[in-house]
């Protein structure tokens, strides 16, 4: 456990030192949300863009957290620091735990800033309870994305190996999970693929939260599954992170 905190502290110190990365992680999503606003402004008035805003906001956080975390861990492998950490007495579990904990703070800041910008930019009038619940779901998704990034990085020997996972994981998330259209009309096999992707459950929760009649019991299962992804990916990443060549 001590090693986990040592790595988490090192990740945070490193993030503080890498201002370009820090700026990209926080300002990047804000710029993309603004582009989303520009796009939605072009839609005809009969389309209720407000119901798409929060799911897309969650997707932006999901995509950026995943890609940035995966690339940073692959860089560790290329630089030889991952190997050196392991030979230096750090276990696989402490490395994964340390990274997750280190990015925990970044994911929280990302979730808060993006949510605040979306509410302000799209003039969304949600009550405090809804805003808190939206924050929780976006934050949970950000943690899942960090874990997914760590897991995917175990299959990549260099940065370029991360990019094929974008069409494999991120693009189906756009088409098959209810982000644009309800997945009920999709063929069964496509619905099954959609249900394997974590953002499906985040989008489900968000759609329910913004309904005036929402009660938390409506989405307990989705919350449970989203949390389950965190533990499942933690176990999977521990199993696939290689200590030896």
């Amino acid at each position: 456990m001590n090693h986990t905190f040592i790595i988490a502290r090192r990740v945070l110190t490193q993030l503080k030192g890498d201002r370009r990365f820090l700026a990209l992680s926080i300002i990047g999503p804000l710029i993309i949300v603004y582009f989303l606003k520009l796009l939605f402004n072009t839609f005809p008035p009969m389309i209720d863009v407000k119901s798409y805003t929060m799911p897309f906001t969650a997707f932006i956080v999901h995509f950026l957290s995943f890609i940035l975390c995966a690339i940073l861990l692959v860089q560790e492998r290329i630089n030889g620091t991952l190997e050196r950490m392991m030979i230096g007495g750090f276990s696989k579990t402490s490395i994964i735990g340390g990274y997750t904990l280190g990015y925990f703070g970044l994911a929280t800041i990302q979730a808060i800033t993006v949510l605040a910008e979306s509410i302000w930019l799209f003039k969304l009038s949600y009550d405090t309870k809804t805003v808190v619940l939206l924050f929780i779901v976006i934050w949970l998704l950000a943690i899942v994305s960090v874990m997914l990034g760590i897991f995917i990085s175990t299959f990549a020997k260099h940065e370029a190996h991360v990019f094929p996972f974008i069409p494999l994981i991120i693009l189906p998330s756009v088409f098959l999970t209810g982000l644009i259209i309800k997945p009920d009309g999709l063929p069964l096999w496509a619905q099954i693929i959609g249900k394997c992707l974590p953002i499906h459950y985040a989008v489900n929760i968000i759609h329910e939260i913004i309904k005036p009649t929402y009660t938390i019991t409506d989405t307990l299962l989705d919350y449970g599954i989203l949390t389950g992804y965190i533990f499942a990916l933690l176990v999977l990443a521990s199993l696939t992170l290689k200590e030896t060549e």
Partner: protein
Amino acid sequence: MNAIEIVKLTKYYGKICALNKMSLDVPEGTIYGLVGPNGAGKTTLIKALVGSLQPDSGYAKVLDLDPLKDKWKLRQQIGYMPQSPALYDDLSARNNILFFGKGQHVPDLQKKVDEILSFAELTKRANDAVRTFSGGMKKRVSLCCALIHNPKIIFLDEPTAAVDPHLKMQSWILFRKLAQKGVTIFVSTHQMDEAMLCDQVTILRNGEILAVDTPQNILKLGKTNVKIITNNEEKVSVIDSTPQSLADELKKYGLEKNISSVELHSDTIEDIILSIVQEKEKGNKS
């Protein structure tokens, strides 16, 4: 007692044989050199010994421990400096060393970090980000990270490549001091002057051992051309590269019979540059 025992260690990368049934013993408290060109198998062997590579067959014991099965016990007792610096560029030199020191639960860590930074002549730059360092300075930080927990065996993969002659000399003085205290130094190099500083040397090529001996005995295998010019007459002879052979050859030309050994040492370009730098530094101080 042997610090390292390697028996028929074999590793293939696809069809390429990186280690071919390699066997060797490394005595405790020695500086053991692994010499060979790029691709000889030096790095592969070191990785197998530190437990970051799974060999295809054969086995190795380090401090009587299996590098893979007993990894947790072993990793507390070994230091490893990879070929690339393997440092966090956005962290300072101090924070890099602190990080790897904390990983090994080093007692009185801050004091040890100060001492090792001073040895590496990095005290003035201790708090600067490593990304602002030259290649040689990064190597120095990397060496500090490998030594911070006082390991019993240190694996150094080309530790002084890109390091300036002065610090290279300092590093080898430190390696010798550590060996005198009983620490085993297992070092790979392709620089022959460094090989001469080892107690024993293994020459590798294409994953195979070509020779295992002391550097002095390996030197005897070499030949020296002696060119003597008398009254415009030139005579060239080829002798063994030993001081005794040179004395015997010169006796033919009247060297006193009681002189049994003649050794020549000419400064290399490195020695000359080092002495110029030292002279200049002395001048600046006075």
